[in-house]
């Protein structure tokens, strides 16, 4: 990609490993990109790319769930 525009930008909230997350995905050139953040404060904790939105989101969510599962509560 030299230049282009993000297309199909979507963002929604869900829950992974018991924590709220926001899943954002969009297509840039031929690749779908996905970022998962932890809503509050909103730090991106996983990102992935794929040939479809579903593939990118699935890969990012798997990474995010693994990281979130390590969060301790007191």
């Amino acid at each position, binding site marked *: *990609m*030299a*230049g*282009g*525009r*993000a*297309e199909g*930008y979507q*963002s929604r909230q869900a829950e992974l490993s018991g*924590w709220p997350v926001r899943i*954002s995905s*969009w297509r*840039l050139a031929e690749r779908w*990109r996905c*970022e998962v*953040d*932890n809503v*509050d*404060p*909103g*730090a*991106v*904790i*996983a*990102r992935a*790319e794929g040939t479809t939105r579903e593939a990118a989101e699935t890969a990012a969510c798997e990474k*995010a769930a693994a*990281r*979130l599962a*390590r*969060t*301790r*509560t*007191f």
Partner: protein
Amino acid sequence: MGSYAHPEMLVETEWVAGRLDDRNLRLVEVDVDTGSYDSGHLPGAIAWNWTTQLCDTLRRDILPKDAFEMLMAESGIGNDTTVVLYGDNNNWFAAWALWQMKIYGHKDVRLMNGGRKKWLAEGRELTDEVPAVPARSYAASAPDAALRAMMPEVQGLMGSASMVDVRSPDEFTGKILAPPGLPETCQRGGHIPAAKNIPWGQACNEDGTFKSFDELKSLYEGKGIRGDVPVIAYCRIGERSSHTWFALKYLLGYPDVRNYDGSWTEWGNMVGAPVERGA
């Protein structure tokens, strides 16, 4: 309806889109996720990595003056350059960079309202090309200590300043030691006694832009933060609180707002420091 105290500190995405070829404008992306820039950024924008370029990498501190001057010069920024900062997560680290630029006296630095998220959502132009920028000379001012709170000042102002803890309620109460999915960086959970919990994101609309003057005034005044005494904002490492610092200082116009960048990673690790838990 009131208006921002310093509306010139914010620019809209449309304003930026119309000035991508402006040679006296330097666009700089500063992300929490330092890989975001490589996945597509605003045409002509350069990037600063907050983990290596916006801090002293030996001791824990902001950039020393000479390193700041070098960063500006290498970024093609002169003292007269208009700098527009933007980034992911509603401009978290863009605000952190702006705070440092104001500490060193840069005159014209602004945030792109809504940041990277809004630009993406609007389907605006992106590129993966990294521009070559001509170096400039840059002379920073002596650091403005009034914009920053160091730990002894925070201790000294307990009881007389307004402390704003901008972390999430779970961090504030001590339920968690770090935001979900991020490394734990403190020994104790909780907050500075008497601090008010106003999570930074409450200052934002869903599209990442700042709420209106009236909404911000209601949000902070509703928690007793009126700006009639010094205000100290803190979070975990000082970046979320930069965002709140920006809102309080430039959008509401409070006269004495300081960012305590030592934040909870300092306070929550300090032997003997008073800590409150719970809401």
